[in-house]
């Protein structure tokens, strides 16, 4: 008699780390293959395109520096968003928090530019972090108080923050000397972050923050409480965690790091405030944080790779005339594959005979009765 066979997925007791990494790498390779098909549709040679992308990101010292400049905001914003995500607080408001951080820092840069450089820069960092943190605190307060859906509120606040910066740029802060062109005046030199080894000093901040956030999340009581809330809010409640306070602190930190990104971008990259200041970092950081499974050291790695993808992406854009949107499609494809691969990290497959399945079902039903 032929037994009918089926494949069943069952949950693994404990996914091995090496195996998990292997599966994720397989997913990225599959994503690259899928992207190759897409590139073939564009009548281009995928190998060529990938080679040029690597060259575009790391081909010369200048391009490598540019890649690092792109990676800095991603690292810091991903760290911030990662803290919120660890708590299962879906902070999609990175864009708004970056914009408001940049706004507050720019206020000092524009109106107190005669302060000595270290004092001014310190004030700008502080203002950026506080503004970003407070902007994030609004949805966090609603969430902690009434359980208001934070997905939507953080997102709506992006639009409000960006409209506010637009208002300043086209209205009260518009530089009269720019002759009809709607832009805010450039910062004076003492409001611009210094360079170290050819790249602005933000990279030092980023590296330090990776270490600080890693220690905070893994080796402090608060960090542990944040993770417990993320696992199960009831467990946290029974364990005596002050849930409201922890949510507010974690989100203040999350938004504060995004606000710092705003300060860095305004000061070191754009040398002024503008609507384009966020550059979509708030959204990209969601992807990088998730790809890195919210772990600080992995965030560093993934952010640099993603920055390379962006920088290489804009290079192939000029070489092959591929539109910018193609890079977005590639990002989406990669994340789809990695998201799908999580299933194979968490579950394993076994072949079972149909009648055994029925038996097993009976047994579980029996157990439930007990």
């Amino acid at each position, binding site marked *: 008699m032929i037994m009918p066979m089926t494949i069943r997925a069952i949950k693994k007791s404990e996914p091995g780390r090496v195996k998990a990494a292997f599966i994720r790498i397989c997913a990225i390779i599959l994503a690259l293959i899928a992207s190759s098909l897409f590139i073939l549709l564009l009548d281009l040679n995928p190998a060529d395109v990938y080679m040029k992308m690597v060259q575009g990101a790391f081909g010369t010292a200048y391009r490598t520096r540019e890649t690092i400049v792109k990676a800095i905001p991603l690292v810091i914003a991903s760290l911030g968003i990662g803290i919120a995500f660890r708590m299962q607080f879906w902070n999609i408001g990175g864009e708004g928090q970056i914009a408001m951080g940049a706004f507050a820092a720019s206020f000092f840069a524009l109106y107190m530019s005669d302060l000595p450089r270290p004092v001014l820069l310190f004030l700008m960092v502080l203002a950026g972090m506080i503004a970003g943190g407070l902007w994030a605190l609004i949805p966090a307060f609603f969430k902690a108080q009434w359980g208001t859906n934070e997905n939507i509120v953080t997102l709506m606040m992006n639009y409000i923050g960006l409209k506010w910066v637009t208002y300043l740029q086209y209205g009260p802060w518009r530089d009269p000397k720019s002759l009809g062109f709607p832009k805010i005046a450039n910062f004076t030199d003492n409001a611009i972050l210094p360079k170290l080894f050819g790249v602005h000093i933000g990279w030092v901040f980023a590296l330090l923050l990776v270490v600080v956030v890693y220690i905070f999340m893994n080796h402090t009581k608060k960090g542990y409480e944040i993770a417990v809330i993320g696992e199960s809010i009831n467990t946290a409640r029974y364990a005596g965690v002050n849930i409201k306070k922890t949510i507010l602190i974690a989100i203040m930190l999350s938004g504060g790091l995004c606000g710092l990104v705003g300060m860095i971008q305004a000061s070191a990259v754009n040398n002024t405030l503008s609507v384009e200041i966020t550059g979509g970092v708030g959204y990209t950081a969601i992807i990088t944080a998730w790809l890195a499974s919210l772990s600080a050291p992995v965030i560093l790695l993934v952010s640099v790779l993603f920055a390379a993808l962006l920088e290489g992406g804009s290079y192939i854009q000029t070489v092959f005339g591929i539109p910018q949107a193609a890079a977005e499609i590639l990002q989406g494809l990669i994340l789809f594959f990695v998201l799908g691969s999580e*299933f194979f990290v968490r579950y394993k497959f076994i072949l079972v005979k149909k009648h055994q399945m029925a038996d097993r079902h009976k047994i579980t039903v029996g157990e439930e009765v007990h």
Partner: protein
Amino acid sequence: MDALISFLAAAIVAGTPLLFATLGEIITERAGNLNLGVEGMMLMGAVMGFMVGLSTGNAALALLSAMIAGACGALIFAFLTITLRANQVVTGLTLTIFGSGFSDFIGQDLVGKIAPEGLRLFFRPYSIPVLGNIPFIGPVLFRQDAFVYLGYATSILLGVYLYKTSWGMNLRAVGENPGAADAAGVNVTLYKYVHTLLGGALCGLGGAYLSLVYVPALQEGVTAGRGWIAVALVIFATWNPYKALFGAYLFGGLDIIGFRIQGLGINVSQYFIDMLPYLVTITVLVVVSMRKSKEKAPPKGLGNAYFREER
């Protein structure tokens, strides 16, 4: 009076894309799936509907392709979250990024093109006999384009489906307690797939309304955040298709109020008026969450993957 009538009629037009997207997300969330990719699916529908409309000049084909495009986006979401049990929030966000890349890419040569004459004629306002002549109500509700009428019909059909048919009852059971629905013999996976795809198709229609009728031209990011407002409107409408009708038109009114206020000579910065829909959305969400009640709660199974073995 005339000004009020024209404002309300315009609010309904502006609310129609929101209505389709909201209905789509309601049906998706009723199956227990929180798909935050509404914006992405709308964009995919907007560009595909416009492209097919431009090349064929056929309204039915244009709408059909917009629906298929939205459903394809939803299929990616469904496969990842239902079959592979990926995180719904992150998958939905990725779908939005992917959808906006996809539509920018496909539509790059079409941006700025105007919807073809034939289609614009097809979707011109049409007064319904008798109903269109009722004072006040007639010009507001019944002198609209075919798409708006389709919106009325879709809400009512979905409402009847959800509350009056056994399929609708099964669907609500799947969203509330998939385990119990499964035990009662409902095919949970099938229900989730079908309704997530249907929801995506409706979102695609909402996008097509923007590019084919409302603007009517293709712009980059033509949805401008409406997909997200639709996600909030689902909460505002408490997952009820009839209330979605009201919510969508209310927000349609907010969308156009800026122009009207400036028309009245009141001097408010355009940028502050632009913030209005977002501010109101936040306020609505906060108020809804403050006065929580059982009937206003989301489906209990929302956001969680269903896996028979982990029941």
